């Protein structure tokens, strides 16, 4: 399943636990993402998916286990260090800087880079991917619609030229047409060789685009495997796909 020549996974969670106060929201999970893979982590609201991502990126202290990225132990590293290693995240709720212009937001995505020419070229690439952003490049991001903000957040994450992209609920709160656009972009970025860990409540869509999937319930991984198999798994269908409304 792994696409790269190197067999060690790009990201490996080994018994990762994350706690809020005394409550363990993530209870010792194991998860790997191979080089070039698109892996999704699905589960109901409150299952611990976002907390897992926060643990990986250092936004929430890890209470147990290890996080290995590209062979190195990055457990407990501050989030600003991870970008330099090629790990970018699109946070839940998009997290665009509403008071900054679209161009400034993209500049911040490339904060760790020094190659001016390369940055300018990548800004144009993002604009080519999302022409809507180009029209509004000098507007503040707060004036954008939810879907446009999601595009900006993804474009901004790509500006760091990541090797691993973590996407937290990119379809949340978006109109069906926008959801489709977001998933097209995910597939396209994945096709360019970027490894992706996708977190989604929209299990059907996520499993349709992903290579492999993990199902999370109450802080633990309950099922894992090939995305197509999970899509046809009776337990998954009953628990998650039954809830999914008609998708575009």
């Amino acid at each position, binding site marked *: 399943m792994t696409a790269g020549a190197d067999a060690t996974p790009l990201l490996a969670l080994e018994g990762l636990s994350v706690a809020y106060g005394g409550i363990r929201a993530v209870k010792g999970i194991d998860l790997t993402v191979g080089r070039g893979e698109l892996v999704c982590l699905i589960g109901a609201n409150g299952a611990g998916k976002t907390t897992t991502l926060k643990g990986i990126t*250092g936004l929430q202290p890890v209470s147990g286990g290890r996080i290995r990225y590209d062979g190195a132990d990055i457990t407990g590293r501050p*989030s600003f260090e991870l970008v330099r290693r090629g790990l970018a995240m699109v946070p839940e709720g998009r997290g665009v*800087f509403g008071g*900054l212009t679209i161009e*400034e937001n993209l500049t911040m*995505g490339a904060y*760790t880079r020094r190659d001016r020419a390369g940055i300018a070229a990548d800004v144009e690439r993002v604009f080519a991917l999302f022409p809507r952003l180009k029209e509004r490049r000098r507007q503040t991001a707060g004036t954008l619609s939810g879907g446009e903000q999601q595009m900006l957040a993804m474009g901004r994450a790509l500006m760091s030229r990541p090797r691993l992209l973590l996407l937290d609920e990119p379809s949340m709160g978006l109109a069906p047409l926008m959801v489709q656009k977001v998933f097209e972009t995910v597939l396209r970025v994945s096709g360019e060789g970027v490894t992706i860990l996708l977190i989604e409540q929209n299990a059907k869509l996520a499993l349709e685009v992903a290579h492999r999937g993990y199902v999370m319930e109450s802080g633990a991984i309950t099922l894992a495997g090939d995305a197509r198999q999970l899509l046809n798994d009776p337990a998954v269908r009953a628990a998650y796909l039954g809830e999914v409304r008609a998708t575009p």
Partner: protein
Amino acid sequence: MDIFLQQIINGLTLGSVYAIVALGYTMVYGIIQLINFAHGEVVMIGAMVAYSVIVALVGAGAPLPPLAIVLCGALAAIPVCMAVGFTLERVAYRPLRRAPRLAPLITAIGLSIILQHLAMIVWSRNPLPYPQVIQSVSYHVTGNPNGATITNVQIAIICMSVLLMAGLTTLVYRTKLGIAMRATAQNQQVAGLMGIDINKVIALTFVIAGGLGSVAGVMVGTYYGIAHYQMGFLLGLKAFSAAVLGGIGNLAGAMLGGLLLGIIEALGAGYVGDITDLCRFASWSDALAARCASGEHVVLFGSNYQDVFAFIVLIVVLVFRPSGLLGERVSDRA
């Protein structure tokens, strides 16, 4: 009319200083929502350090032009105040970043007292006369030989402030560091995800605020010709009022608020005596009429009430427009 013009000139000078100090309050508030009440003391330390350097240079009979002596004082004060700002953040505020809002606020007041007393130990409790190295030269603003004047010191203060404000605006809106500062102000977590070391950005904000404060300290010392270990207290409160007037957290607001406050204060000080001159009510009381007839001015509030205006402005703003003139939203934070 000439009195009015003169007060406007005085107000602009004073207001420029308030604006520079207010920028220090507003930058720190913008990025970590903390009112750094010790900022006034940073300004005081700037004035004190420059005082020591200027006195030493004058005492040694250094063959320097007067402006260069003052500049040397400022150049010594800037790194000291930057270091003070950096230390305050590192030692006192950073450990409290996740603490309830009241804790860093009280810490700020405590730091302000500590800095005052350190300054008292170093520079004594007496008011220190700033050597008037720059010969004050007055220029007439109008054709009237007895009319309003502006001094070379006032011109220097106003020009210096404009330069600093322009420099800061360029830094914040045109450079990568400035964008990173604004990004950190808006969302620290996401700024971290971009690879921005937010601790560094916050520390730099304190350093820049300290640098601005030190220059303001030198300007105040040179303008009033005096420095005192408690001078930062009132100046700090007024600059804070200016920042609130303009909308705290907003750079343009701090500049506008500072200038407005300076002008309000100067006009207030200039006219409060005339407005509250009781002799206009002389017909109401024989005793009053007798005193006024002897040429005495019976004034209810003299220009010594100058300091009141800043706080009247603060109260009025907080009651009627808590977000300030340029503030966009009413902050729900202390």
